[in-house]
């Protein structure tokens, strides 16, 4: 920034911030995502609103707030401008923010004169300073977003994909998705070009821009289109207490002893809440077969493969080092409850409606593989186990996971009969998570490479 720009800037009026989008009130039992009229402008409230609606909306709102900081009476504009100039050119951003907290004259024009790089650094510093600089941060953020919008639109029009993705990286939340959709609107080949530019810029496929572009590419296969309303027809079952999902205001319930007519030993995972058709289950399965002697001591695990219907061979592993495979019948999306594109394609047993996404499962015990293990006289019993790690996902977010074990125990007589024994179903754990473990992400993208948008 040169001195002439500085002088011009100090004379200009602050541009009014854009209007904030309408904000839906939060559900009574849900997270405090929206700011009510009587909420104080606390850092927590602002950050919550920012997370839900993006910086643009918050910036607009803050821009309408009365200034709570008093400017020093009779301040010296020339001296302020010199101090401001020195702080900006010296990249002393904390000094610059502190000056902006007690401005002499309007700050908007001064902020507007900064380059995108400068205003971004200023905003980052103000953000780090927390509540004391919150008002300054949000005003500056409005300025930054207007600059960013202009540069992004110009790069998009010129199809300069390296610049497009670089500018995309300046957005967050709803703003980012909205801008990424503008790239998609130019056509799939252009979106692919942008994704390639992002991959060149950020080798880590976990980078949020890479994930965002990946999500936009398959967004049509992440919602109701692959979760058309369906009723499983299952009955019965014992439910555990529902667990809240704070991010969506919904809840998750585990149940077992569910009947589908073929068996009464199914387990179920039910998400109930708003936006259910954009919320679903990504399930991973690991299997092991353990040989045991007459004292229950392990004689080792079966080494080999199983081939589920419609899939390629999968390796059995051990309880201690499970190897995971994606568990879905769908041919178009990784979600358990997703439908298939093929007319004769499968769909996991599920309930889907605007307020509910439930899945039900019970694997086979594989008596055919268990029986030959009893040709070793030392083997007195065999446990055939399926371990499940099942993730609740909503659009680009991973919200929580549940771990479930299904165990079939055979003795020689039962194995010789060639039928499964009664399974023992256990809900072994679960909790809030924000990402898929790397091995499970790899298992998912091995079958659905385009669905690389979930954090991992």
């Amino acid at each position, binding site marked *: 920034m040169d001195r002439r720009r500085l002088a011009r800037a100090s004379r200009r009026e602050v541009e009014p911030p854009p209007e904030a989008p309408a904000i839906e009130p939060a559900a009574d039992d849900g997270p405090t995502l929206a700011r009510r009229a009587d909420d104080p402008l606390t850092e927590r409230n602002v950050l919550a609103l920012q997370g839900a609606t993006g910086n643009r909306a918050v910036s607009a709102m803050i821009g309408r707030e009365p200034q709570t900081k008093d400017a020093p009476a009779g301040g010296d504009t020339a001296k302020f401008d010199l101090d401001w100039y020195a702080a900006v050119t010296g990249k002393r951003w904390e000094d610059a923010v502190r000056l902006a907290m007690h401005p002499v004259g309007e700050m908007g024009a001064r902020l507007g004169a900064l380059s995108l790089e400068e205003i971004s650094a200023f905003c980052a510093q103000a953000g780090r300073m927390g509540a004391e600089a919150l008002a300054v941060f949000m005003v500056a953020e409005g300025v930054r977003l207007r600059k960013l919008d202009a540069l992004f639109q110009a790069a998009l029009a010129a199809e300069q994909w390296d610049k497009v993705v670089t500018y995309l990286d300046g957005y967050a939340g709803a703003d980012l998705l909205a801008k990424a959709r503008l790239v998609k609107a130019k056509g799939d080949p252009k979106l692919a070009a942008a994704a390639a530019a992002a991959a060149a810029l950020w080798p880590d496929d976990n980078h949020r821009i890479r994930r965002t572009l990946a999500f936009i590419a398959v967004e049509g296969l992440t919602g109701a289109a692959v979760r058309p309303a*369906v009723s*499983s*027809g299952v009955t019965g079952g014992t439910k555990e207490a529902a667990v809240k999902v704070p991010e969506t205001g919904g809840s998750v319930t585990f149940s077992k002893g569910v009947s*589908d007519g*073929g068996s009464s030993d*199914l387990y179920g995972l039910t998400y109930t809440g708003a936006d259910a058709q954009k919320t679903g289950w990504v*399930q991973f*399965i690991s299997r092991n077969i353990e040989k045991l002697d007459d004292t229950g001591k392990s004689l*080792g695990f*079966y*080494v*080999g493969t199983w*081939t*589920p*219907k*419609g*899939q390629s061979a999968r390796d059995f592993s051990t309880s201690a080092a499970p190897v995971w*495979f994606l*568990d*879905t*019948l769908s041919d178009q999306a990784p979600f*358990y409850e997703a439908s298939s594109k093929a007319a004769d394609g*499968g*769909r*996991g*047993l599920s309930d889907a409606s605007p307020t509910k996404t439930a899945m*039900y*499962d*019970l*694997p*086979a015990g*594989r*008596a*055919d*593989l268990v*029986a*030959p*293990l*009893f*040709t*070793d*006289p*030392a083997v007195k019993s065999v446990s055939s186990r*399926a371990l499940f790690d099942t993730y609740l996902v909503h659009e680009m977010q991973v919200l929580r996971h549940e771990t479930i074990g299904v165990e079939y125990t055979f003795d*020689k007589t039962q*194995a*010789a009969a*060639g*039928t*499964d024994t009664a399974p023992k179903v256990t809900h072994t754990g679960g909790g809030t998570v924000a990402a898929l473990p790397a091995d499970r992400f790899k298992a998912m993208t091995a079958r659905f490479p385009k669905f690389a948008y979930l954090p991992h």
Partner: protein
Amino acid sequence: MGELSGTLRAGREAVAGAVVLAAEPGATDALASTRTAEDGAFSLSVPDGMLRVFARAGAGVAVGVATRTVEAPAEGRLDLDLEDHAALHPVSIVAEGDVPPELDLQLTPERIDGVDRDALALLHATVPGVTRPMLVTRPFGPARRVDLRMQGGSWILYSAYDLAPDARGAGSRHLAWRVERAEAEGGAELPPAAIGHALEVDRPLTVILRIVRLER
């Protein structure tokens, strides 16, 4: 430590791909193991002292076991022959009925003439690279038939296949193929074994397995 080398044969034929292991006499854990080459040759690095050498031949047409107790490394070269213990008999096993392409035949000996039970326990010794619990696993293939030369003795004959999706679909059923009846030439039904059926091999045989598909 010393080197114990030898060959495994089935009469005049070399036996390739067989597992050869060495264990202390009476033990069920292998001290060393290897596989025979195309010409039936093998070589094991073994500790000095008395050892039981045990060969498991399940990959070729001639199937069975061979064993000998040796003083290592003084014995030097060790030649094993499946027919040292029991004669090999041609046995054809034919699958009839609803036979899925994935269905395998599995066989393992419960008793081999001339091989003591302690030695036969080494069929179940853990050996790197060996994953099948039974000695022989062979697909029936398009001909729905497996032709072998089996050592004289008592064998367990087993065949089963389950097909189920991992994820449960609406109305999806678990399909299972099982041997409904196993019979020798002339229609005599084979008796049940601990699993599958018992097959006494003492002459040339043809066995017919009647396969049925079950829906669960």
